[in-house]
Structure formats: C-alpha cells, structure tokens
C-alpha cells in the first residue's frame, strides 16, 4: 500500500497555483510530512487527497493510492482516514457509537461489532468511556477516540491535519508516539501537514517544504 503524489498543484479558478507542483512517495507504515507556514495551502492539499475540495478548486497532477488514480472519486469511496487538530467526534453519539460509526461495515453481528469497539477503546486506554458523552472526555482522550474511530474504518491511507497542535506540550509527545505507533502497526501510508519541526522528526518519513 503506497500513496504517491505526482506533480500535484491546486489553484482556485483562474488564480495562480497555491504552491509549486509537489511530488512525494509514501510507503506503507511510513509518515510523510508536508511543512509550511499557515495559509500556504497545506490543508487544501489534504482536501485534494481526501476528495473534499470545494467547488471552484482545480487539482492538477496525479494522486495514486495502491496503483489507483483517485481523480473523480467521492471521498467516501477513497477509504482515506482524516484526523484534525480537534478530534471532531460526532456530538450526538456516545463514544462507543462514534467508533461504531467508523467500524467497517463488513464486520457483521451486533455483539461482534460491540466487542471490536470495546476492545479498541481498551487498547487506547479508554476503557469505561463507551457510553459517555464525547463532550465529557479530556483533550487527549478525544484525540485517541478519534484515531481509534478512523482505524476501525480500515482506511488504506491516513491524512493528519496539524494533528497535535492543540494539545499541551506533555500530551503532544505522548499522542505523537501513540498515533505514529498505530500507523506503523497498521502498515498504511500517512500524510501529515504541520508547522512543528518536532512532528516531522518524530514522523521520520519523507519531508517536503511548501512555499
């Protein structure tokens, strides 16, 4: 499983491209990092890979995941997980239901699905939070729940949008280690945008500077 960006550039309507064409190759279990100051179009790049570009944005170049060109695919068919700096848990669902929303549909049976969700929570150190309101979790707990939700959906790749920038310093190192370990275990390529050099060091994968 590999993620390849081949001369990817994005522009809004007739405006000049946001950044020079970007090429990158991320191998399975590897975390590629895109660095750059804010406003340069890092998040827009992730939108293009995930299929979330707003109307009016034009993406040129090729984005290939496991040999499949992603152009024209709606986001729900790309199987690319998405992590933001806020966990973005669904506020109307309990913690367990948030994970169940993500859990791949090929897992059948109520009790089996419930078991998988509970085991994932346990693995993330969230045992006992299953029926809680996500708004009552701490920042670190929310981030871990969001990562578990994404991994349960069995993504083929992962996008991380400044994933640790809202956590305080101590928690940041812990979450970074937790997230990167899970990505390496699952053997999928990940693409992270950040302005924090320590994130890039921890990722230890290819790094591209924008702008």
């Amino acid at each position: 499983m590999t993620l390849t960006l081949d001369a990817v550039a994005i522009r809004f309507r007739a405006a000049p491209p946001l950044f020079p064409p970007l090429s990158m190759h991320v191998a399975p279990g590897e975390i590629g990092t895109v660095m750059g100051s804010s406003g340069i179009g890092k998040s827009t790049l992730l939108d293009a890979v995930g299929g979330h570009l707003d109307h009016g944005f034009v993406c040129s170049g090729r984005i290939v995941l496991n040999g499949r060109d992603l152009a024209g695919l709606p986001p729900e068919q790309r199987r690319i997980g998405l992590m933001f700096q806020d966990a973005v848990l669904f506020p109307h669902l309990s913690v367990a239901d948030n994970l169940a929303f993500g859990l791949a549909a090929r897992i059948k049976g109520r009790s089996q699905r419930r078991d998988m969700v509970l085991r994932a929570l346990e693995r993330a150190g969230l045992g006992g939070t299953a029926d809680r309101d996500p708004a009552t979790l701490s920042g670190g707990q929310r981030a871990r729940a969001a990562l578990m939700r994404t991994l349960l959906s069995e993504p083929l790749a992962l996008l991380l949008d400044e994933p640790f920038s809202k956590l305080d310093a101590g928690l940041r190192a812990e979450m970074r280690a937790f997230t990167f370990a899970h990505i390496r275990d699952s053997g999928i390529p990940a693409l992270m945008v950040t302005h924090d050099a320590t994130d890039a060091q921890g990722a230890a994968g290819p790094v591209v500077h924008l702008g």
Partner: protein
Amino acid sequence: MSGGAYSLWSLRAVALGCVSLGILAPVAAGMWQTVRAAFGSLPAIGAFGPDAGPWADLLAMPGLLAAVRLTIVTGLGATVLSLMVAIGVCAALHGRRSPRLAARVLVPFLAMPHAALAIGLAFVLAPSGWIGRAMAPWLGWDRPPDLATVNDPWGLALILGLMIKEVPFLLFVLLSALTQIPVRQQMAAGRALGYGRGMVWIKVILPQLWPLIRLPVMIVLAYGMSVVDMALILGPSNPPTLAVMLTRLFSNPDLRLLLPASAGGLLQLGLVIAAFALVWLVQRGLRVLGGCWVRRGRRGGWTEPGLALTVVVLSGLVVLGGLAMSAMLVWSFAWRWPWPALVPDSWSLRAWMAPAGGWGRALGHTVVIALCSAGLSLLLAIAWLEGEDRARRGRARWAEVLVHVPLLVPQVSFLFGMNILLLRLGLSGSLLAVIWAHSLFVFPYVMLALAAPWRALDPRLGRTAAALGAGPWRRLIGIKLPVLLAPVCAAAAIGVAVSVAQYLPTLFIGAGRVPTLTTEAVTLAASSDRRVTGVYASLQAALPFLAYLLAFALPAIVHRNRRDLRGQVPE
C-alpha cells in the same frame, strides 16, 4: 469532482426547480391574472378587455382616498415605531440581559397568531374591556363609555396591535444580527472616545446592522400595509384600510366588482413599492447626512432618556399582549360577566362543549394544513441546503432573494389571480390547494430559520464521516440531521405558526369551503358572542404554542446527555 455534482438531476437542481415551479411561477402567474383583470379582462365573468373601466370604477369608490391614507399611516407608522422601539430596547439592554433569556420571553409573542392577538386585544381595549372596567370605579362610569377605542377612525388600535407582534419579531431579528458584529469591543472603543451608549449605537452599530435587518424590515412593512385579519378586527371599519376594502370587494356576490378590486390589488402593490422606494431614499439620505454628522464628532449624552422610554414602551406592549392572551381565555370560560367586574361572576364550559358544532372541524383543518405545509416546506428547505452542500457550491443568491417574493408582494394583489388559475384547473376550494397556498408563505420563514444554523454546521463533521466511508445519505441522516435537530424542530414550529396564522390564503384559495380556526375566529370577531370567539381565538393561539413547546422539548430530551448540543434555544 464527486459524481452527481454536475448532473442535471442533482438535489440542488431538484430543489431549485421545485421552488421556481411551485412558488415563483404561481405568484407570477397570479400577478399576471390580476393585471389582466385590472384592465378589464376576465373572460369568466364575460369581461373582455383591455379597457380602463376598472380603474374608473375603483377611483369612483367612496372612501378610496381615506383607505389609501389609512394604509400608509398604519403600515408605515407601525413599522417605523416598531423599528425604533426594537432598536432602542436592543441598545438599552444589550450586554445587560442574556440574549437567550430575551429570546425565551419573546417566543410566546412570536408564536401568537395575529388574529388571536387582535381578538384578545379588542377584548382588553374595548370600552367594555378590562381597561374600561379597571377605570370605571375611579371615573364613576356606570356603563361602558361611548368611545371608539377599537376600530378608531385613525387606526391607532391597529397600529398598537401590529406593534405588539412586530416589535418582538424585529427584536429577535436584531438579536441574531447582533451576534455577527463585535458589539462589545466597538462599544468599549466608542465609549473610550467619549461617546454615550446611545450615540455609539446610532453612529457605529446601527449602520452595520441595517444591511443585516433590511429584508425583515421590508417584510414587516409590506405585511403592515396589507394585513387583512388584524385590520378587520382592530382597524377602522368605514372607510377601512385598502386591503380590507379590497377583500370585501373580492368577496362581494356582485362579480363585476372583481375588476375594480383587481385594479385595487395593483394599487396596493404600488403603495408597497412606493414605501420600499421611500425606505431606499431615506437610507440614501441618511448615509450622506449621517456621514457629515459623524465627522463633526459631537459626543452628545442626551440619548439615555430615549432609551429608557423604549424600554417602557416595550414593557407596555408586553403587558398588553399578556392581557390580550388572558382575556380571550377568560372570556371562553366566562358565563355571567357583568360590567364593571374584573373577573366573571360565574364560569362555564358551555362554549367549549360543542366541538361537533364547529370548532372540531376547523381545528382538524387547521392542524392538517399546518402539519402538511410545514412538513413540505421543511423537506424542501432541507433538500435545498443539502443540495448546496453536495454541489459544494456557495448559495444560490438569486433564488434566495426570490423566495421572499411571496412575503414582499401583498397577498391581496396576487391571491385572487392565483385562484382564477386554480378554478380553471378545478383545484380551487380543495384542501390540497390550501396546503400549497400556505406553503408559499411558510417556506420562506422555514428557510430563513434553518439556513443560518445549517450553514454554520462544522463542515469537518461531514468530511470526517465521508472519510470513514459514509455516503451522502448516511452523512445527512446519521450526522447532519441529528446534530441539527434543535434548529430543524424550531424551523418546523415556525412553519406551523405561520400556517396557523394565515387568513387570506385560506379564505381565497379555500373559496370559503375550508374553514380553519383563523377564518372562523375572524368571522366570529365581528359577532357579539365573546365566549365562542374566545374559544376559537384560544385554540388558534394554542396550536403554535404547542408547536414551540414540542420544538423546545424534543431536542432537550433526545440530547439530554450531550453537552455540546444542549442549551440551544429554538430560533
């Protein structure tokens, strides 16, 4: 990018098509029929124009000039006064009272149908009403004084009634517009420069606020100038306002009067357009004069008494409104209530005991029409907003403006023309036609209520769901609608309230064959039986209350354990 975004049958195209064909085209067609009839062309009654006869007939009508004058005075007067009070109250109370608390106090007044309020207010204001009874011992009246306190020839009671409804509406509009402006910082900056509170409001906040509230103010203005039910109950009767005069002509058994009535419909439209033009001119003028005024830099501290006065006026309106609501309820249970007692001597359920004799059927019609038109409008609004999301385009502003056309064009100007078309299709007088006619007026309000919260929804929720493999329908039903449950419920309640309040569409499109609580209450208001009138008015007011109560309770119960979704008041 995504499949379907460009296809002809995208949800967005379907929603815009429904709005164009279901709402805009019929209004335009109805207007066209009115224009034809105004120039003497109405084949159904053997009139084959074009000729100017209807206009000559209209101009020859006794009291036309007085009716026009009354329309301008009451419509413009009520709107200007309401706007001044609402802005003053906002300036006086902003930052002191929590907006959420204010919203809760306002909800009953927003829910109250115009007709029910007018009936209750007439009970309070009439010489034999509560005010007269309270004053009787002091002034030594042994019977109700012979004063025209309701239906006064100047339209003062009508202006008062309109204000009780419109001040809370405008306050609500202002409160939500104010959330878009950093009032606290600007107020602090202005006061640090030595300007008084009122002055900062007038010179700094108001100019930014105006573009945000202009459309609702126009709606209030158009409504005030063309309202029929409230004007029938509270307004002067001879001559009445133009809209009432035209409604009488349209309902006259003499079909030849339809032609001058249609001409009058155009005149009514012309008056509203002229009022809009006046607003525009005043706005232009104020921009020039206000600029000079601001540059002179006078601080001026004279506004505090004015602000206090607006709060007093609002309190008076709220008390009168509360009294009006109580009065109709008390009358519906009253049996013997001699002058000048403040409460009835004896009580009775008699007026309520005969649902089969009338109010049962009217209640049934009202509920069915309200649920269907609110439901249809809600579906269409959701389809529209979801269609926008799926096309990942911005808002279709042209359509958004056009949706409000039914609220800006006087009802009396196009409903008759629309009914001509329905007659030709054999649909006039059917329940279905009335539901559809209500939807014309319900949909804009539902859209207005739902659009802001929908567009404010965090787009990352939908993106996260898509990244987890959820398709567009699962994102809509599994994520967006549950998260937006409170505003969806609120929009539905507003839809119900708007439908229950409709008078003219029910009367014209229902061709008198679909009696609702509103049409029956307005008819009864002219009679002398206050007990039965009280029953209909109370029921009419109860339905929107119930809808708002449900809209408030349902999300609170469903989301009781979800901290991030609680604490949103229905808007």
